[in-house]
């Protein structure tokens, strides 16, 4: 459904754009219908940039992003983009900054109505809104006709998901949507994503939290410095990490029943089998992947 092929994003930095910063390096990945793909990485690994490129908010420097056969990067004109957003929507990290503070929160629904459903009657629209608000398990009386500052982060985040559901979406880009929520609302939103997956939506789940990635996704992509370090079915990636960076990352997850020293000692006692990592020549911008086992890819090691 969504296919990224050798996507690069280079930012020009410094005075007169003299220097360059490669935010995304040679990323290729696929999201299929009914599948949750986690993009996992630390701050600055390029995961949010990837999400923005899929949403057409920034253009890749190189490479193609295709959605159902159409090249997203080559969408020309306002009409084509609008049609694209009918099927692909995003929810952003910070629910408080996703709402214009001077308007009521349900204005995000009105914007969808005026753009995509100009002819619908008030009653039909009201029913539609109540339906999606119910889908995200919110009480309409509590959330409609309120200002953003009157609602909690979890409520706002779910309103944003409800807004996306008003459209006939097939792909949802969820950019760190759980990071700002407290633990109890987290699980609600995660379960909601699982429901959406059941409906056949593809979800690109951007996160820096390994346990969330593990909980929700079918496949995981671990990014480092803009390139894919490891990609594969979530279970295999988490049980048998092959890339040194993913091993390091996973060993950093705090565990309730063991201390760091115990974890380190165990890792030292039975060092994992090494995998031949792909290498690239100096000055080569590509980032090839090697298939270590079925569907499980390992990428280059960047210092």
């Amino acid at each position, binding site marked *: 459904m969504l296919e990224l092929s050798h996507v690069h994003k280079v930012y020009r930095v410094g005075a007169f754009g003299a220097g360059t910063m490669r935010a995304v390096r040679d990323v290729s990945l696929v999201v299929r219908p009914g599948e949750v793909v986690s993009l996992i990485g630390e701050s600055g690994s390029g995961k949010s940039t990837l999400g923005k490129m899929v949403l057409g908010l920034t253009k890749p420097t190189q490479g193609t992003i295709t959605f159902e056969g159409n090249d997203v990067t080559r969408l020309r004109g306002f009409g084509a983009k609008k049609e694209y957003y009918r099927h692909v929507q995003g929810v952003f990290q910070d629910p408080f900054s996703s709402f*214009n503070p001077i308007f009521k929160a349900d204005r995000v629904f009105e914007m969808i109505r005026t753009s995509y459903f100009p002819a619908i009657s008030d009653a039909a629209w009201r029913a539609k809104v109540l339906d999606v608000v119910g889908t995200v398990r919110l009480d309409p009386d509590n959330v409609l006709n309120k200002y953003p500052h009157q609602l909690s982060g979890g409520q706002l985040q779910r309103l944003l998901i409800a807004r996306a559901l008003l459209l006939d979406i097939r792909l949802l880009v969820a950019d760190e949507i759980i990071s700002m929520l407290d633990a109890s609302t987290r699980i609600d939103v995660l379960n909601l994503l699982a429901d959406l997956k059941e409906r056949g939506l593809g979800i690109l789940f951007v996160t820096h939290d390994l346990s969330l990635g593990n909980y929700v996704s079918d496949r995981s992509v671990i990014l480092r410095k803009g390139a894919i370090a490891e990609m594969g079915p979530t279970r295999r990636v988490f049980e048998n990490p092959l890339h040194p960076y993913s091993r390091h990352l996973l060993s950093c997850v705090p565990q309730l029943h063991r201390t760091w020293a115990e974890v380190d000692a165990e890792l030292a006692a039975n060092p994992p089998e090494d995998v031949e990592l792909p290498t690239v020549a100096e000055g080569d911008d590509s980032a090839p992947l090697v298939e270590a086992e079925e569907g499980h890819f390992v990428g280059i090691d960047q210092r």
Partner: protein
Amino acid sequence: MSNVAGAPGADAATPAEPVAERGRSEILHFAGRNPKLLIGAGVVLTLLLTGLIGPLFVDHGPNEYIGPKNQPPSGEYWLGTTSFGQDIWAQFVYGLRSTFMIGALGGGIAFLLGTTIGFLAGYKGGIVDEILNLITNVVLVLPTLVVLIVAVSYLQVEGLLVQGLFIGLTSWPWAARAVRSQALTLANRDYVDLARLSGRRTWRIITSEIAPNMSSYLMMSFILLFGGAILIAAGLDFIGLGPAGGVSLGLMLESSMQWSALQLGLWWWFIPPGAGITAIVGSMYILNVGLDEVFNPKLREL
């Protein structure tokens, strides 16, 4: 504020409207208690009304020679007469009118240009920003007064409209820069991206997402441009490049200087226009500071 209206789980029947009203009445509350705002607005409105209504009670043209020469202010000629026997009160009220006209015209054109260019540059970014920024910087470093003098003296059209147009076309750059920097920060907010995902056109996003968030800022830019346009027009009039055959506070100053009002002790000739310009622009700036205090909670004196 002990009960937080609409907090999660709060009484669902609590209507949300009072918050909007509270925001508005809060602004009014502080506006009514801000002496700078009240004094500034009072002076500007008084002068505006004088300029609008005053000419209706003057039954002769401002430049007609109607009375005795060199008369000091009296019951018949409130502000005295010039050395040609023109009524200075008539000139003053007509001059106020054209001064406000030039402020609205020049300031308005500059405001439209500046905000349009600033918003486009700040929102679009990239190459659009670079080009617009280049143009802005070029116009910014032009010696505006010299360009105005050259343009006004070579193009033999010296109407109020043309003068306003010239002032508008040369004084927009700082407004464009200020609006651009504000728009730059606002354009990166998530709700702007969300509006793009909602299939909104660029123009709708700028006018309905970004501009409302900086409305007080825009209002103050307009006031400053308005005052600036009045000053530039007065300067042009004073050096003899004002609208020919018209009357304005600057032209009054110019003719009083030309006919040695200062040396002859005809203080009633040059003080009213000078004080008028100073009062309009000065009280506008005070009004501006007052507005700033009203809109910006950090500056409020509680």
